[in-house]
């Protein structure tokens, strides 16, 4: 059982970075982004191809590839914000949701067209070390993902609660129109959310793909499904909740998956999402006002 718990935490850690990206964008812009997975995946595809072919006479190392992925995904996030999301400011949530879904599909189809469906080798930027704990073996990549997600969550929380820009972000979240009247540059908040969300998406892709060793179109969107479940269970407006929820998803995946089967574990997770939406829509760590 302890072994399953450790494995579950390691699985959940892989989703936590994506979940944090989802929560950051949602809590700042009220947009539930389904494009987070593929933004990172697309950037990772480009970086890995660069690593493989050595464009401009340079074969970046795998670690540098990860950094390029993070930067590239951040830039892609900004591009999506400027070209797709900003013109949709003020539109119903359903419109923005569909827009992000379309962005995800376009990116995945582009990956398919350019790189094909066959798995693309994705080596780990932090090496192939492992950690053995209570009978379980987890990879250094998973440990890195968990540590990075925790660090990012704390850093973002401090930034959003201790800086004037963070206060401005919270004002925009509360009511964008009022915030604008009060002099807050709302577009800057959106740029921040999508830019940092993109960076996190890139980090998630750079660490998630190497866990299984390969990258395929839609694979990060599939992972996003689990991350989204974690974010909803933990609280869509809570960075800590995103991590806690993701870890819970990992635990269910491991414990139920090993004792029953993977289909049942997926069913349990989505049943938990449903129950959360019905009983406590703000999630485990979300704000009380959400249920009002």
């Amino acid at each position, binding site marked *: 059982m302890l072994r399953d718990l450790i494995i579950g935490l390691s699985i959940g850690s892989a989703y936590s970075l994506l979940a944090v990206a989802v929560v950051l964008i949602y809590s700042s812009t009220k947009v*539930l982004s389904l494009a987070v997975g593929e933004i990172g995946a697309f950037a990772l595809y480009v970086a890995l191809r660069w690593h493989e072919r050595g464009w401009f006479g340079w074969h970046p190392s795998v670690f540098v590839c990860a950094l390029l992925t993070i930067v590239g995904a951040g830039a892609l996030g900004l591009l999506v914000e400027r070209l797709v999301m900003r013109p949709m400011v003020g539109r119903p949530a359903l419109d923005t949701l569909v827009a992000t879904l379309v962005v995800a599909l376009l990116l995945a189809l582009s990956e398919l067209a350019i790189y094909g469906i066959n798995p693309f080798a994705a080596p780990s930027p932090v090496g192939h070390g492992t950690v053995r704990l209570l009978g379980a073996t987890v990879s250094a990549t998973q440990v890195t993902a968990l540590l990075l997600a925790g660090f990012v969550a704390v850093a973002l929380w401090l930034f959003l609660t201790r800086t004037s820009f963070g206060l401005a972000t919270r004002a925009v979240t509360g009511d964008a129109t009022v915030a604008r009247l009060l002099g807050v540059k709302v577009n800057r908040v959106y740029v921040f959310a999508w830019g940092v969300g993109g960076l996190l998406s890139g980090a998630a892709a750079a660490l998630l793909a190497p866990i*299984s*060793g390969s990258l395929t179109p839609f694979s990060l969107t599939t992972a996003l499904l689990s991350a989204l479940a974690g974010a909803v269970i933990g609280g869509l407006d809570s960075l800590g909740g995103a991590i806690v929820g993701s870890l819970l998803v990992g635990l269910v995946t491991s414990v139920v998956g090993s004792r029953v089967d993977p289909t049942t574990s997926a069913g349990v997770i989505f049943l938990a999402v449903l129950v959360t939406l019905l009983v406590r829509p703000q999630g485990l760590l979300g704000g009380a006002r959400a249920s009002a």
Partner: protein
Amino acid sequence: MRPARSRSSRVALALGSTALLALTASGCAARFDRPPPGTQSLDQGGGLPVDQGGLPITPTGQPGTGTTGLTGTTSGTTGVQQGPSTTGGTTGGTTTTGGTAGGSTGTAGGGTTGSVPPGSTTGINGTTITVGLFVPKTGAAPVPATVDAQAQNYFDYVREKGGINGRNVKIKIYDTGSTEAGARTAVQQAVSDGIFAAVSLDRLTVEARLTAELHAAHIPHLVAQLPPSTTIPDDAFYIGMNQLHHGPQIADYMVHNLRKTKVGVIIETDPGLNAARDAFVTRAQANGATVYKNVINPADSDYTAQVNALCASKAETTWLYMAPTPAVNIAVEYRQLCPAQKMTWVGNNISWGFNLVLTPAAGALDGAKVFSPWGGLRDPRYTTFNQVNKEGQTDRDKDIGLAAWGFGQVLAAAIKQAGPALGRNSFLVAMQALKTGTTDQVTGTAMCWPPLDFTGGKRYGSGDRSIVMTVQGTGATAIWATESDYRSTF
């Protein structure tokens, strides 16, 4: 930040979850081995598998209740008419179903057919016979793009050799998109185009759909694989291996050839795969081995739990009964999380025994074995293929050309046996009497698919003969190589 959540936000959230679920369920991962649920049992004809002496084929309608083998099956207006065969057995008979009018009896086939009415000549135009090749060029599990050029390769070579009875075959490719809906559309297009016959190589569910649609359109069909539980129509000819029999074969191979006593099997979450998995487990245990078994969701991107469990089981060899992507992912994760234990991975049929798969595996599949319909590219029997095939770019895409070359050989053999009076009727009769052996009857080169024998109403022409291939080299230079020739028992 804890903003109030609006009603529209909750709606969006629910829709988002639903959309992602639908996206995932639509099948993003590559799969060759996923049969549809609810198909009929393989066993028919008094409980005997149809490839082991079950009911004879009547080329239209239901299996006949007449006599053994290919016996004088003269059907009615839509049926196959077969006259006396020039060689063959001794038993005559009639079929009681399959056509609207009964016919005369004949003698058992086994060699070339005699004056067989050609039947429909759809797709035969002057000196050209148009045959459809149904493959996934797009979608979840596409074949290499060079399949277009490689598909015609064999018949270009046949043309150099003088053609077949004054004709040659033109291959027309149809893209299934790796989906059943795509398969339906592709068959509709093929019917509109008026193809003579069809060959297909796709994932199991798509193959099953193609088989049903082509049967409904009365188009003769050579199929590479089908779900173990599927009833094979009388105008479809299964030229790959029956996966139901692969389980025991692989179990025997692991114990007797690899000499392992701790074996494993991991399958995708699909009840259609259980029968072959269970047959594997039963045989392995009967052989005295301890068996680890597990299930994965092919849509998952992280198999840490299964890999940890596999590592803890101390299994020395494991059958990955799944599509290429999860197989590669599991092998990569295993190498990372369980580096101290050596594992020999085993695959089946055409699921992941392609050179293309070895690139993302990046050494994780080193030493793997696969039970394959064809051998490795360096196999001496494929010298002519390698010399003629200039369209395949590298080792990574040439083995799909090998599959197409083999399809061509089977087609050519049946077309030759059907004689100058070629039509769908005479072609079906020739297929039902087909025995290919190891040498191409048209070009004299080595056959690329297993020696086939469809006589006596056999539905699985290969008789479950497989070549075992092994991975030679590592990483970017790795390539599948022939380990042992066609055989049924290990």
